[in-house]
């Protein structure tokens, strides 16, 4: 952990901005999220949600402003930070020509895990894919891919997990499994989820953030949110379009 960090905060974002040419994808975004929280990020298409998620997970750099995740600066401490983050996307981030087990073995080596076999067996059992561990990922259904993707993201026991539209394309049964898996690990991790599903996002979150045109429209703790007002504000925001 870097020196002089606020150990209670999972995210510290200060005036975060990102421009692509003339377009401002993010503009002056500022908020704090405590450890153990579940932040749901909402907003219309093009609001900057995925851009912000990419910056926080070190896949992209800000144009200005700062962001700290678990006390690590996302730019200066990116290599160290990556040891502590997991990422679940609507893309599975898995190699289709490898088996489920081989995929996890590969990422276990990339993360230099001790006793990877034990950890892999444990996770495959948790995501109910142990019986399919020797099957090629190319043969997996969408729901199975997402479950294996969760196993991949949890392999190195990250402290914070980013989810980019994880429920996208899942059938109700697969959604239930994903809910169950998140609930199993909810207490030990901080979550940041981007979602278009207002109901699901509010159901899971402890903090909610609405972005529109790259700016924060609302950032509030779940307990202080009235669902009807929030829903109305969100619909109004979606009508605002993109930056």
């Amino acid at each position, binding site marked *: 952990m870097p020196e002089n960090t606020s150990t209670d905060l999972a995210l510290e974002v200060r005036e975060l901005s990102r421009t692509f040419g003339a377009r401002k994808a993010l503009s002056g975004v500022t908020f704090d999220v405590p450890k153990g929280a579940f932040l749901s990020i909402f907003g219309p298409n093009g609001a900057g949600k995925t851009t912000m998620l990419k910056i926080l*997970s*070190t*896949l992209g*750099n800000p144009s200005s402003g700062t962001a700290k995740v678990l006390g690590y600066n996302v730019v200066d401490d990116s*290599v*160290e930070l*990556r*040891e502590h*983050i997991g*990422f679940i*996307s609507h*893309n*599975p*981030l*898995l*190699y*289709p*020509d*490898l088996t489920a087990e*081989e995929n996890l073995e*590969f*990422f276990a*080596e*990339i*993360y*230099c895990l001790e006793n990877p076999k034990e950890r892999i067996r444990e996770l495959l059992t948790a995501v109910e894919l142990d019986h399919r561990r020797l099957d090629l990922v190319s043969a997996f259904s969408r729901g199975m891919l997402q479950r294996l993707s969760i196993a*991949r993201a949890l392999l190195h026991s990250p402290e914070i997990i980013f989810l980019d539209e994880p429920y996208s394309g899942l059938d109700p049964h697969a959604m239930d499994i994903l809910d169950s898996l998140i609930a199993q690990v909810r207490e030990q991790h901080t979550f940041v989820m981007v979602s278009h599903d207002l109901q699901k996002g509010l159901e899971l979150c402890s903090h909610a953030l609405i972005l529109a045109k790259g700016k924060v429209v609302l950032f509030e703790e779940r307990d202080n949110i009235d669902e009807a007002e929030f829903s109305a504000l969100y619909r109004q925001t979606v009508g605002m379009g993109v930056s």
Partner: protein
Amino acid sequence: MSSWRQFAAILRKDIVMELRTKEMLTSMGLYAFLVLLIYYLAVSQANGGFNVGYIAAGLLWLAIVFTSLLGLNRSLVHEKDQGCLDALLLSPIDRPVIFFGKAVGNLLFLLIVEVLVVPMFYFLFLLKTGLVGPVWMLALALLVGSIGIAGMGTMLATMSVNTKGKDFILAVLFVPIMFPLLYAVVAASTAVVMGDAVFFGEWAKQYWQSLGLAAGYDSIMLLAAYGLYEFIIGA
């Protein structure tokens, strides 16, 4: 984090995937055979009107270059598919380790194709005249050239994989950037085909000077790739 362990994981993964699918080796091998066959048909129209030994090495390297372009693009497309490259970038791996893992894998596949293609090259172009110089000198020239092609090619393929016209962009970037290396290895290989002197004589001089140029190019460009890869892969 152990860079060696991460490098080994990337290399092992690429080898396992290739052994399973045989996609790259099959396409590269068949492509190289086809290219050499067409060259042979073209040269045979001259009915022995010139010494084919002067151009044989150039034809071999043309086949290797075209074949490598095919393989280099495929190796990065595999990473781009399903977001696997993002998964690597999200992990605590130094970017140059990704570069070396991919480059060594590409070198390995290229060398395997060359092992299959060079005998065919000999059979088609050098059966009558034979290889005048020792085989090890040709092998060394092939190795030095392949290292440069695999290394710089991996970097250029990474640059082009995020663009719309990835195949086109790689080919356009490849030829001018690789030209000094290609000139050197063609000259070195021609010296082996035409000359029998290892250390003395004009052909030997051409060989060692050209090989030195190629090795120097490899060193400089691989160092540049090592330093720039972080910016290229993150772009």
